[in-house]
Structure formats: C-alpha cells, structure tokens
C-alpha cells in the first residue's frame, strides 16, 4: 500500500515500533499532542485516539501476535484539516469483510470483535490493503457546526 504525502502536510512522522503495547501508548500521546497543538476539537481527538489505539492494538496483538521479533511500521501525516495514519504489521493479514457484525443480537455477549467497527464509525475513511496487514485511517477535521 502506498500513500502519497501531500505538500500541504504540516506534520509528518514515521516510526517502527516493537510489538509492545506501551510503545503504542507513547506514539498515541505524541499524536494527541500534535492535534491539540493544531487546535483540533476534543471530539475529533477522542475519535483519532480511539481508532488509532484499536488499529495499533490489532497490529501488535492480532497481526504480529505480540512477537517481539516483529515490528509495526507507522506513518502519520497531518494537514490543516486532515489526519492520516498508515499502520502496517508483519503478520499474515486478514480479510476485514469476514469479521462478523458485533452488534448482531447473537454476538452481543462476545467479548471481542468491536475494534474495526469503532474505527469505521469514528474515522472518515478506513482502508485495508489486499493482504489485510496494513490499514490507512483518515479523519477529516470537523467543522464548527458538526
């Protein structure tokens, strides 16, 4: 999967993380700080935090199966009104279309399976690559009347 950085990006960041969740937490704090610094609303920041955390946890736990020998590559871009992040793990990938609907009555008592749905709800766009081991999340900045 390729992303094409836009010349209007105000902030860009690329990092390779070990498959350790505390590392994901540190990256998430940096992203949050950058959004706060640019004056993004609390609601938008909440949405980005939630979705990015779910994607990072998926990459580390489900993609790399917390294997310390595998890494997660993260690239972020931030413009005045768009946040984009690409997260790629070294796992075998999966088909997001096969993930069952966690809101169906027969699945409500299942403890897992809600992360992708929350990402899709809180972000403007969520796209997986064909292999299913990389995801691009985009959040368009809300206007004041949203």
């Amino acid at each position: 999967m390729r992303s094409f950085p836009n010349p209007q990006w105000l902030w860009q960041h690329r990092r390779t993380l070990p498959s350790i969740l505390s590392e994901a937490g540190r990256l998430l704090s940096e992203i949050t700080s950058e959004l706060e610094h640019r004056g993004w609303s609390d609601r938008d920041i909440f949405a980005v935090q939630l979705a990015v955390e779910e994607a990072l946890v998926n990459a580390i736990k489900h993609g790399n199966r917390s294997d310390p020998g595998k890494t997660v590559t993260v690239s972020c871009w931030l413009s005045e009104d768009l946040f984009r992040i690409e997260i790629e793990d070294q796992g075998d990938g999966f088909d997001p279309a096969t993930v069952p609907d966690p809101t169906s009555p027969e699945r409500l008592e299942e403890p897992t399976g809600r992360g992708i749905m929350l990402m899709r709800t809180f972000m403007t766009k969520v796209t997986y690559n064909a292999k299913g081991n990389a995801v691009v999340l985009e959040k368009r900045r809300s206007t004041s009347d949203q």
Partner: protein
Amino acid sequence: MNPFFRHLEVRQIPGGVVLYCVRPRILDNSESQEFGEELRDILRLFQPQAVVFNLRNVVFLPTAVLSILVTLKVRLEKEGKSLALTNVRPEILEILRIAALDRWFQIFPDEADAVAILLSSAAQSSNS
C-alpha cells in the same frame, strides 16, 4: 474505599459493591489484564450479589476493557447476580451505543439509583 487494588476502588454496600476506576484510561494490554484480574479478585473476595460500576472517572474505553465488562456481566448473570453502570460520560455512552451495548448493559445516570434498584432486585430474587 479499599486501598489494595491498583486500578479499582471498592465501596462495600449491603449485598454488593460499588467500583470506581482509579485512572481515567487503561491502554496497555498488561494493564487491562491486571484490571481483569483485580475484578476477579474483588468478586472472589466480596462475593457481591450486585456490582455497580461507577464510570465517572473513565474518559476513554478501549475495546480491551469493554471486553472485560462484557465478560463480567455474562459471568455475573450466569450466577444470578447483576451489574449496572453509572455516571457514564457521553463519549463513553456513544461507544456503548455504537456497539449496541447501551441497552444490553443496565445504565443509570446516578449511582444511588443503581444501588437501590440492584439491591432491591437482589433481595427479591433471594426471597423467591
């Protein structure tokens, strides 16, 4: 309040417990595991008929913790016990609504109401 738990404070009430999250967010997987282990310890230690989870401090709810709450409710109900959530912030309520769990969980705006209703139903089931 019980000082022995890292993630949860416990207030005993007759027949149950009220739980409060100490910190506003739990991200790390090991922390969510600890959170789950503390919950299991609390259930074993206090043997509550009713659990009221006051989420007033919770500003962020990753699905790892949501999973623990779902598992807790299923477990309690299998044992004829009950769980209610109270003081849920709007952003957390939105997560529960999106996950279609806002009606699956018993949610009360106020802790006192949740305690009164859960304890009353616990008393009724023990009398029947």
